[in-house]
């Protein structure tokens, strides 16, 4: 039987790192299980305007770097693994990873969410061939080409602004007739001469063999469709999708109370199983931001401490 940790945190995004910071300060023996990259969704974010104390121009990676260093200072152990199953009922919880098994008296699930796909024909086949969910990863490929951004929230408009560094034109395709993004971001977008808007529109199909060459856009009000074809000289264009997030909690389905893929907790992050907590975007909640994820993580860690007595 391996070591039994006081707390195992699954996920090293803002919620998980914040939980690790609080657990570390409480001198709980802590293990963070992260499958590959620290930071979760925010490390693919170019600019974070709304985290208190963040400097102007603060990027996701720079913010996360500071959080990781802060956590390391309090001595949480780290392992790179993907959790594929869990036994949560007993006094000692068992997490089964691809590489090993981990035992903890408490568990904080901070697995977060991943970008939600459009779900239209052609999309899956063209990921990495013109379709992307990561502007900082892939914007560079579309230097001087046409770029389309799908969505109208904070992420979509923030990333559209970032993509104007690369594209000769950035067109925002949004299903409504007004943006949902924060007013400060909207103002920047409306003032940017490279950004255009296609209102009341959705992407109905993405076309291309081994590279994106065309797309069908449908007006949701009139039902009219319109085909967009890649410029002959460019040969392709970019479609960046920011229409929301899919929770990453499939492992816990049937084990915990959930609602549409998210884990239900009370306001102190308790799930329906004693000793099992959830924090961050994985929870049923109304505002998914770095600051709310960090707050969740802090509460969850303190609740672990109370639970351990």
């Amino acid at each position, binding site marked *: 039987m391996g070591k039994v940790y006081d707390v195992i945190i699954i996920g090293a995004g803002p919620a998980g790192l914040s939980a690790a910071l609080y657990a570390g300060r409480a001198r709980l023996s802590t293990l963070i299980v992260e*499958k*590959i*990259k*620290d*930071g979760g969704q925010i*490390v*693919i974010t170019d600019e974070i305007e709304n985290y208190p104390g963040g400097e102007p121009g603060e990027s*996701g*990676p720079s913010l996360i770097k500071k959080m990781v260093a802060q956590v390391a200072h309090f001595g949480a152990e780290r392992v*790179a693994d*993907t959790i594929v199953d869990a036994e949560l009922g007993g006094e000692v919880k068992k997490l089964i990873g*691809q590489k090993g098994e981990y035992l903890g008296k408490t568990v904080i699930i901070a697995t977060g969410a*991943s970008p939600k796909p459009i779900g239209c024909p052609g999309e899956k086949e063209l*990921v*990495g*061939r*013109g*379709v*992307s969910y*990561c502007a*900082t*990863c*892939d*914007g*560079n*490929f*579309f*230097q001087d080409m046409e770029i389309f951004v799908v969505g109208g929230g904070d992420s979509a408009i923030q990333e559209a602004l970032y993509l104007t560094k690369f594209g000769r034109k950035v067109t925002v395709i949004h299903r409504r007739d007004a943006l949902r993004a924060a007013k400060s971001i909207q103002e920047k977008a409306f003032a940017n001469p490279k950004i255009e808007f296609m209102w009341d529109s959705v992407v109905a199909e993405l076309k291309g063999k*081994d*590279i*994106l060459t065309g797309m069908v856009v449908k007006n949701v009000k009139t039902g009219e469709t319109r085909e967009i074809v890649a410029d002959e000289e460019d*040969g*392709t264009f*970019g479609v960046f999708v920011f229409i929301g997030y899919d929770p990453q909690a499939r492992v816990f389905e049937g084990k915990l109370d959930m609602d549409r893929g998210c884990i239900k907790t009370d306001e102190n992050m308790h799930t329906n199983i004693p000793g099992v907590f959830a924090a961050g975007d994985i929870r049923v909640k109304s505002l998914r931001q770095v600051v709310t994820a960090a707050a969740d993580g802090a509460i969850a860690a303190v609740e672990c401490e109370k639970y351990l007595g």
Partner: protein
Amino acid sequence: MVELTKENFEEEVLKAEGKVFVDFYGDGCVPCQALMPFVHEYAETYGEKIKFCALNTTKARRLAIAQRVLGLPVMAVYQNGGKIDELIKDDCTAESIEQMIKKHI
């Protein structure tokens, strides 16, 4: 690991004998950076059986597009001048990359 460029890609990858593993990465790509230590580890372990190369696509955008790489990270295996296997974006994990390498040695 052979660092690829626009100039040597043809020689090192397309005209190479046997199979060649290519890690396509980019400057702003955090997922790529997170995978890099694993790829280096595999290069140590399997380097005698398959050639390991990496291409910074930020400096070779056109070349990457010609290879049908427009999203990162991409881990690919080449043979006889063509791509015979690849993992794109979220399909790239430490485990899946090692599996793909093992399949080709």
